[in-house]
């Protein structure tokens, strides 16, 4: 037994205070009136003796309280043999199964080392097996059954996820909080530097945890990989009209010497082009394959290199390219509006002649059309819709279609915006000066910076708006506003689709946008946005999430089913999940196939996180910081039989005893003092 803070023992001098108060200080008694002292006799000596005897218990309690407080602050401890509690240890076996563990025999080595730790365990140890990837996965509950642990370790397979050591710390903290026994954590990993969190403070492990690291790779391993590919997601047209795109790939080497590598472009499993490039030492190089031509429909494209390294799985980069005929766009306009279809079709032709083709119809003829073949629909200067067309448009949008509504001057005098279903609150005719503006027009004041397809407000500079309608924007997302804060462009999701509302027009009367060069870019970007064409390559990385269902609004959404087929040809979603799950985590590298509710099919190439290709190890000094308690595995096992001393703090028990003493003295003191001050009959003033 010992004391960690002996200086606090000077506090024992405080014991003199209750001694003085109880024994040395003369008791001051307040005289009390009594009717007559005829039958009394003075008795003084016995009074002091009586007082001392009476408060003896209270004095003892107060002395004990002070003594215990001083002792608690002095922090005494008891030396207890470590081996006294051999059964109280939990051994966590955490095995890295991230993508990089596919390199060489890393995973097999890790599993072999884990089985070795299992073989050296103490009889009373409980063990638990977990795997580390982008998430920590618990394979077994804490158990003393070696067969269960062995089976779990043996069955571990590497996946395509990225290892995240911060997940390890979270799990270790949780285990430390939930377990009252000593915990020994064994991590079997290739200790990739890229797996460390950006802030090392996130790697601080609980104090009651001893960490044993088992690096599965002895040194930095050279590795070449295709780190990124840029390719067009869609190619339109057929025959001589086809407009092929170019494919750009970046080849990188980590801890590699300078070397020549053969880079090949594969389309649907066939090599269509190859180039030999020189990759500098520990550097990267860019490769371009011009004029990518793919057959109609979706094509599975890959960039491959001949790396001859330990991790061949990252030598291929998958991406999907779709070739299709130009998409049809239905432009519905008022009978009297001949200008807006002209402006719109010309703008689309100027921007993406091979991607979109506009079909203009007057409102009267639109009711007979089926909307399914169209990429999106435009309503221009249409204030009211025939009932059949209204219903058809609602079904079209709910199933995933998109509509652009340009109000123009047609909305004036009506209460609600067709299809968008927002109230029309006010007509803003700036050309008449009624809006209070100094000029007879307004410009775009602000745009939503999160909408990349729109561009910024500067791209709208010079566009004059003479007329707009102010609408109720409570249920919509405002993408652009005029300088008087009138919403110009709004978006609202209805079911699986979306409706874009332009509160001005496309006819050149309510603004000069069609006459402005920005109109072509705006129409092109809007067309791509509404047709849901991807702006980048048809490629994602593992552990990213794919949006399956748009956020549903009450009363507007009809549940549609999304079919997903993973790279192994399995359906990862059940029927219920296919109707309700908003997102899907892409957990494997390969090609995912999707069929959305509106019948549109998609193909997505999924690749491992490029950070997993960097096999550089964590520096040794960082590993030493992680260990904190550098007990080698053999030593850890040997320590099981040792009988070393470990200080066991006693302050908690002493504080508990002090609390009890405080409560007892408070109760006793209150009882004594209360009865003393309320002497029945003798404390009242007479008369």
């Amino acid at each position, binding site marked *: 037994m010992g004391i960690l803070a002996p200086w606090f023992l000077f506090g024992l001098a405080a014991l003199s205070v209750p001694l003085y108060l109880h024994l040395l200080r003369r008791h001051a008694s307040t005289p009390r009136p*009594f009717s*007559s002292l005829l039958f*009394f006799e*003075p*008795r003084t000596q016995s009074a*002091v003796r009586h007082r001392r005897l009476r408060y003896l218990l209270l004095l003892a309690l107060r002395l004990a309280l002070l003594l215990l407080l001083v002792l608690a602050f002095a922090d005494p401890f008891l030396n207890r043999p470590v081996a006294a509690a051999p059964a109280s240890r939990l051994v966590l076996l955490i095995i890295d199964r991230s993508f990089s563990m596919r390199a060489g025999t890393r995973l097999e080595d890790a599993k072999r080392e884990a089985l070795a730790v299992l073989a050296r365990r103490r009889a009373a140890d409980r063990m638990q097996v977990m795997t580390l990837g982008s998430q920590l996965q618990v394979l077994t509950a804490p158990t003393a059954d070696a067969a269960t642990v062995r089976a779990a370790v043996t069955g571990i397979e590497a996946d395509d996820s990225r290892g995240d050591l911060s997940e390890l710390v979270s799990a270790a903290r949780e285990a430390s909080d939930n377990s009252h026994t000593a915990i020994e954590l064994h991590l079997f990993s290739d200790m990739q530097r890229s797996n460390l969190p950006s802030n090392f403070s996130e790697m601080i492990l609980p104090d009651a945890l001893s960490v044993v690291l088992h690096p599965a790779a002895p040194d930095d391993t050279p590795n070449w990989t295709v780190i990124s590919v840029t390719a067009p997601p869609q190619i339109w047209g057929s025959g001589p009209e086809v407009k092929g795109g170019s494919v750009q790939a970046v080849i990188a080497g980590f801890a590699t010497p300078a070397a020549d590598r053969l880079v090949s472009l594969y389309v649907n499993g066939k090599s269509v082009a190859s180039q030999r490039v020189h990759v500098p030492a520990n550097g990267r190089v860019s490769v371009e394959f011009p004029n990518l031509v793919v057959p109609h429909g979706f094509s599975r494209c890959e960039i491959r290199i001949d790396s001859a390294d330990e991790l061949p799985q990252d030598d291929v980069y998958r991406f999907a390219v779709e070739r299709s005929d130009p998409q049809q766009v239905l432009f519905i306009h008022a009978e009297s509006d001949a200008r807006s279809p002209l402006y719109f079709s010309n703008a689309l032709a100027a921007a993406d002649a091979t991607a979109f083709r506009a079909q203009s119809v007057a409102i009267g003829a639109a009711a007979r059309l089926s909307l399914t073949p169209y990429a999106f629909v435009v309503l221009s200067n249409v204030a009211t819709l025939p009932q059949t067309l209204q219903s058809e448009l609602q079904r079209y949008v709910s199933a995933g279609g998109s509509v652009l509504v340009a109000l123009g001057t047609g909305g004036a005098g009506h209460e609600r915006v067709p299809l968008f279903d927002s109230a029309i609150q006010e007509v803003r005719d700036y050309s008449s000066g009624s809006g209070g503006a100094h000029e007879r027009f307004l410009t775009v004041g602000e745009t939503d910076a999160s909408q990349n397809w729109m561009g910024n407000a500067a791209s709208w500079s010079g566009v004059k708006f003479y007329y707009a309608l102010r609408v109720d924007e409570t249920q919509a997302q405002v993408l652009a506003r005029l300088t008087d804060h009138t919403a110009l462009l709004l978006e609202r999701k209805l079911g699986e689709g979306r409706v874009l509302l332009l509160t001005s027009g496309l006819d050149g009367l309510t603004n000069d946008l069609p006459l402005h060069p920005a109109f072509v870019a705006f129409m092109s970007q809007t067309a791509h946005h509404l047709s849901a064409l991807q702006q980048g390559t048809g490629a994602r990385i593992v552990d990213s999430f794919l949006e399956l269902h748009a956020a549903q609004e009450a009363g507007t959404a009809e549940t549609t089913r999304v079919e997903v087929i993973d790279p192994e040809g399995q359906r990862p979603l059940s029927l219920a999940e296919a109707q309700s799950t908003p997102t899907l985590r892409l957990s494997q590298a390969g090609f995912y196939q999707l069929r959305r509710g509106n019948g549109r099919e998609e193909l997505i190439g999924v690749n491992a996180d490029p950070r997993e290709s960097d096999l550089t190890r964590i520096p040794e000094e960082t590993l030493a910081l992680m260990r904190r308690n550098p007990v080698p595995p053999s030593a850890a096992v040997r320590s099981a039989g040792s009988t070393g001393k470990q200080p066991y703090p006693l302050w908690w028990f002493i504080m508990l005893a002090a609390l009890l003493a405080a409560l007892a003295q408070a109760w006793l003191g209150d009882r004594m003092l209360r009865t003393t001050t309320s*002497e029945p*009959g003798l404390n009242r003033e007479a008369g």
Partner: protein
Amino acid sequence: MTQRFLDPDVLTSLSGLELIARTVVNGFVAGLHRSPEFGFSQEFAEYRAYSPGDDLRHVDWNVYARTERAYIKRYRGETNMQLTVLLDASGSMRFQSHATSKMDYARYAAASLFYLALHSQHDAAGMIVFDDEVRSYVRPSTRTGQFARLLSALEVAEPGARTDFAKPTLHFQEFLRRRGLAVFLSDFYESPEVLMRAIEPLRYIGNEVVLLHVLDPQEVRPDLREPSILIDLETQQQMEVTPDYAKFEYRDKMAAHIAALRERCRAADVDYFLLETDRPLDAMLRQYLSIRHERK
């Protein structure tokens, strides 16, 4: 049947001695179950044969009609009873251990006796307030307004100096020449010998004397929890006393004092009754009158 009596502290909360007196008297009268034989006089005693010289008004003519013999109805105290309350207003009467002081309790008892005498029995009632001197005197009378005068005198009677029975006794004899009932209300902090020497002359001249000993329960059974300094309310003397003494020796002395008083009173044919101020006044008066009735 449980009798509900009036708590002295409840009486203290009442305003006005007349209301208190009426409440107390009504309370203990109700407790006597409408007995016609209560009070100090007009109590039927016996019949005796008429003899020449007797007042013919007292002949029971109904008996004469049936028996043709003249009988005289005799009553106890058939002469008009004169009640005089001698109220001790010494400093010790100021003491109280609860809401009702001894002085207040004595006031209530006196007022109740006055109410009983004047309103119920139409007897004369008077009062002497004394400590070491006679402080005030209200001549016994049955006149209209006598009750109010007595209550007024009670209201202004405040505890003053120390008790001295010897000095005012001479005045008592002067005031109480006519036979009557003299009721002492006091805590009697005096030796029984001195007290009886002062009282016995009143008995000799034909007065019936009653000692109502008013004590606070803490005077009878003091409960000290710690050594204390006590101040005598009459002499202002200070004394440190101990709980042990108060618990044993004092109680013995007080019990002996009460016993001596009771014994000396019995020997001198003087009524003695102890009134503790935490006891219901109506119950105490009823108890005393019942005992008195049985004894007479």
